[in-house]
């Protein structure tokens, strides 16, 4: 089980209002040059299928609710990777009135990947570090969510 968890991380990418620099680098990871699918990583559009939340950009008052919502919709075990300086600390936006700071002001972050923009190699390294934390996490099997 732990090995499978290590071998098949599905990633949800959320942009909290970054400048798109880090997002382009994340997309670069999917291209033939880096090809993260060789590690079994898939880019998911659905938080309910994701294991790893890749967040770029600083958390601000506008999207903190969305970010928390996405975090809660991701089933355990899950890890959060903050990609880029803005996501780690708020970066160049840290004094803006609407910016709360790093992503860790809103949700717990497991791995920080600094850089402006973070290089694809650094992002892949960060995700591999996150995987080691993912394999150790405990899970309660079923959670009922509000139906109709």
């Amino acid at each position, binding site marked *: 089980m732990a090995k499978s968890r290590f071998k098949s991380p599905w990633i949800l990418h959320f942009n909290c209002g970054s400048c798109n620099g880090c997002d382009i680098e994340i997309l670069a990871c999917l291209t*033939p040059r880096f090809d993260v699918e060789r590690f079994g990583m898939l880019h998911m559009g659905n938080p309910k*299928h994701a294991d790893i939340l890749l967040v770029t950009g600083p958390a601000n008052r506008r999207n903190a609710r969305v970010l928390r919502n996405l975090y809660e919709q991701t089933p355990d075990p899950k890890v959060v990777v903050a990609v880029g300086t803005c996501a780690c600390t708020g970066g160049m936006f840290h004094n803006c009135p609407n910016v709360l700071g790093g992503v860790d002001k809103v949700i717990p972050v497991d791995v920080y990947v600094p850089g402006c923009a973070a290089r694809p190699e650094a992002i892949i390294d960060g995700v591999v570090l996150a995987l080691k934390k993912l394999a150790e996490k405990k899970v309660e099997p079923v959670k009922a969510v509000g*139906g109709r």
Partner: protein
Amino acid sequence: MALAAVLTVLAPFIGGLLSGVDRKLTARMQNRIGPPIIQPFYDLIKLWGKQSFITSSFQAILAFGYMAFAVVAFILLVLLQDLLVIVFMVSMADVCLILGSFNAKSPYSYLGGRRELLQMLSYEPIFILTAVSIFMVTGSFLVESILKLGFPLIFLLPGAFAALLVVFPVEARKSPFDISASHHAHQELVRGVFTEFSGFTLALIEFGHWFKLVLFLTLLTLFWTPHLWLGVILAFIFYFITIIVDNVFPRLTWPFMLKFVWTVGLILILGNLIALAILGVI
């Protein structure tokens, strides 16, 4: 009987390996290295161990129903039972999936479920007409009668075989007819009919899907009995062609799918039956 048991045990492994090969080949066609061939098994085990969000216990039962009906359909096929029952079992599996997707208050799941209904609407007539044309030729709905025929069914029913090839991408959720699950376009449908399934319910559905894939390939193989090896090789070749088509063509709209599958599929099957009637075979 022993052969049927062995085939049933082997089917999920074959199905999983086939989807692994699919992912590897797709990656190679895009000049990427791609995941290992056993990647789908890692995915399945991981999903099984993951937390599941279920909207109601009925949803979990439906996910299990999808898998169970797919497995039962395959077992009936390898036991050489009634073709019509097999077709109905496969549709029951899909009905379970659709009801499961309607089980949550999610627009993406709803849209995916409705599109899955359209997919059913497009391939169901072809399946039933194939069963009917096999009945017209052999005089029985039993799969056993195909084996008793003594010569390959393809000589009499090339049209039905071609029609099955046309619906294969719909059934295997491949582009250009991948309209309900949207494997490659997460921006449009999120994950379509699978959106509200997570953890073990998604694992059950994936497992059932492997069974359906192998069931369909076995159905293609049956047209070549008694030369089974030829059928198996050809089935794999057609699977490979489907992967190429999946990579080459964009996803199309549902009206196109319905029109294309119905016109081409029905013309092929009915044309075949009419030709046989004129020639005096049936």
